[in-house]
């Protein structure tokens, strides 16, 4: 290997060498973190809600007019929806997974404990919810119709019976056995008994802030007596399109005193999912573009500098050839030279990548960068460097030894 003389020669071309190494270092730092963000977003995108999402329709509904009590109106609406052709079941709720808005609350096992054990979301539902959502009850029982009350949202939200998710049960109880046990959802000290456990149900929020409790949900047997209601509807297989189209008219025919937004008022759950992750998907695409552009710029930089150096050293290459270098020796000289510069770049870049991650960690609640991304980035950049230098190096290897005898 010719590492020593190559390093000696590079020391005499510090500016170009340092610039390219720095470019590689910065690219590595940004690409590692960008790839990490992409992975984080993609894994967020691919989380499941615990629902059987196909054939579910979500309706955002606001009652208007002088009414102050909404219980009877909600009941009439639900009866109309449930009787509609093609509908399997429906219920009214304050929120649902991926809605990106809802209630969160601290959960305690001791009523006057200063600090809650964890956070959870609250879904106010009725006995039709589990069937409509397609959520699997793995322990205990569902609510019965008699347990479901109309609840003034300004009053206490603590109800005597609750269904919780398995993830919440495992967080609250060391053995994960929660059935029949008591939890406290408010600081008023009103107990709630766990009567059922569902396998999985995601919270409404998809952001990082809810990441620590994204499978913690408490289902309460109540309909909020409020003008704002979400109706979730399960259509029979193959009927979703027809139900989706017919629902607005049915609701208006049932009661005109309401507003259903034209855009997003009645939408399939695929649409709910798509909109919920729009930012994440956009961020992943943006980061992908940033990576591609940066890698292209770095590759262009390497091609540019290598081509310049080959042009500048034509005579020197000719002399080396005259002194016995084969074409392969010249090729390997330029490839090794690039490898050494890139190696310097990726060593600095790895440190920069962790530094940048530390900053993102503090600023944007990102997770710690995994070593796998740094290793992948290092290998990718070394390969990119070798690929970028290949054409100029091949050109150098074709310089004739007779070049040594030419003046300038």
């Amino acid at each position, binding site marked *: 290997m*010719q590492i*020593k*003389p190559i390093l*000696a*020669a590079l020391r*005499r*071309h510090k500016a170009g060498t340092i610039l390219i190494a720095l470019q590689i270092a910065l690219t590595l730092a940004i690409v590692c973190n960008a790839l990490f963000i992409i992975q984080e977003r993609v894994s967020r995108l691919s989380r499941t809600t615990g629902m059987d999402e196909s054939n579910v329709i979500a309706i955002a509904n606001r009652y208007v007019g002088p009414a102050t009590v909404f219980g009877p109106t909600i009941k009439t609406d639900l009866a109309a929806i449930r009787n509609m052709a093609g509908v399997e079941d429906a219920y009214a709720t304050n929120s649902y997974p991926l809605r990106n808005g809802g209630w969160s609350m601290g959960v305690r096992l001791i009523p006057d404990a200063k600090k809650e054990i964890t956070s959870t979301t609250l879904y106010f539902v009725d006995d039709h919810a589990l069937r409509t959502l397609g959520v699997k009850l793995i322990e205990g029982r569902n609510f019965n119709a008699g347990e479901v009350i109309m609840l003034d949202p300004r009053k206490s939200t603590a109800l005597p019976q609750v269904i919780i998710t398995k993830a919440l049960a495992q967080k609250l109880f060391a053995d994960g056995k929660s059935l029949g046990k008591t939890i406290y959802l408010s600081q008023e000290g009103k107990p709630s008994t766990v009567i059922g456990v569902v396998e999985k149900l995601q919270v409404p929020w998809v952001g990082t802030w809810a990441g620590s409790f994204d499978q913690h949900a408490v289902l309460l047997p109540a309909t909020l007596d409020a003008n704002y209601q979400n109706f979730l509807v399960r259509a029979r297989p193959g009927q979703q399109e027809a139900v989706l189209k017919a629902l607005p008219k049915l609701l208006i025919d049932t009661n005109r005193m309401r507003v259903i937004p034209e855009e997003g008022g009645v939408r399939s759950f695929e649409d709910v999912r798509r909109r919920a992750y729009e930012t994440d998907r956009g961020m992943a695409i943006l980061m992908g573009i940033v990576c591609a552009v940066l890698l292209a710029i770095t590759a262009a930089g390497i091609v540019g500098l290598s081509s310049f150096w080959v042009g500048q050293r034509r*005579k*020197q290459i000719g*002399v*080396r*050839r*005259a*002194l*016995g*270098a*084969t*074409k*392969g*020796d010249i090729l390997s000289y330029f490839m090794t030279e690039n490898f050494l510069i890139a190696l310097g770049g990726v060593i600095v870049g790895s440190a920069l990548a962790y530094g940048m991650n530390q900053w993102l960690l503090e600023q944007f609640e990102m997770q710690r960068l995994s070593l796998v991304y740094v290793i992948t980035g290092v290998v990718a950049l070394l390969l990119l460097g070798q690929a970028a230098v290949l054409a100029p190096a091949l050109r150098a290897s074709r310089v*004739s*030894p*007779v070049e*040594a*005898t030419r*003046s300038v």
Partner: protein
Amino acid sequence: MLKMSHLAKVYRTEVVETYALRDFNINVKEGEFVAVTGPSGSGKTTFLTIAGLLETFTGGEYHLDGVEVSKLDDNARSRIRNEKIGFIFQAFNLIPDLNVFDNVEVPLRYRGMKAAERKQRIMDALERVGLASRAKHYPAELSGGQQQRVAIARALAGSPRLLLADEPTGNLDTQMARGVMELLEEIHREGATIVMVTHDPELAARAQRNVHVIDGQVVDLAEDPRFHAASHLADTAS
């Protein structure tokens, strides 16, 4: 050692063929010191580049150390250049980014020689040209004469069978040129075969034998009318 028979070198473009060498014959024996002279454009540098396997030729035969070189591939030609030929160029052709030691080391590295042997040979060669104390200097820190001595050390370090020198004193003042020439003579006395291209008659006179090239051919000066015309003019002028 070096034998060319009916050698031709033609440069072709779409419209014209130019003969740089035509029916070129030369035979240099082992241990000889031959000066190749001739006016500018006569083809003496082309001869040297072909002799040094830096360039291919168009026709004829060339045997170097008993090997017919026209059939050799690029790698084999590189190997012969590395092992059998030492080059001394007019412009020294040292690599500016490398110090004296690393410059002399270049051909030895291509030979795949072990570090200890390389170091020994480099120091021996530098001792021989009187520059061992400048091993860590860069070419830009040396005088022209010293640079050419480093180039000679580089050529000698590989113990070549043949030294090819292209106007070795062309870029040097008289005093430095004399020093370099004395060094070449000393190397020759130690048994090296040297072919030197020059247009300096004084230098050529110090070689054992002179070969004159005119219009791409080796000529016998005694019989060539072009030489007589030129020398007649020179006589008149003086």
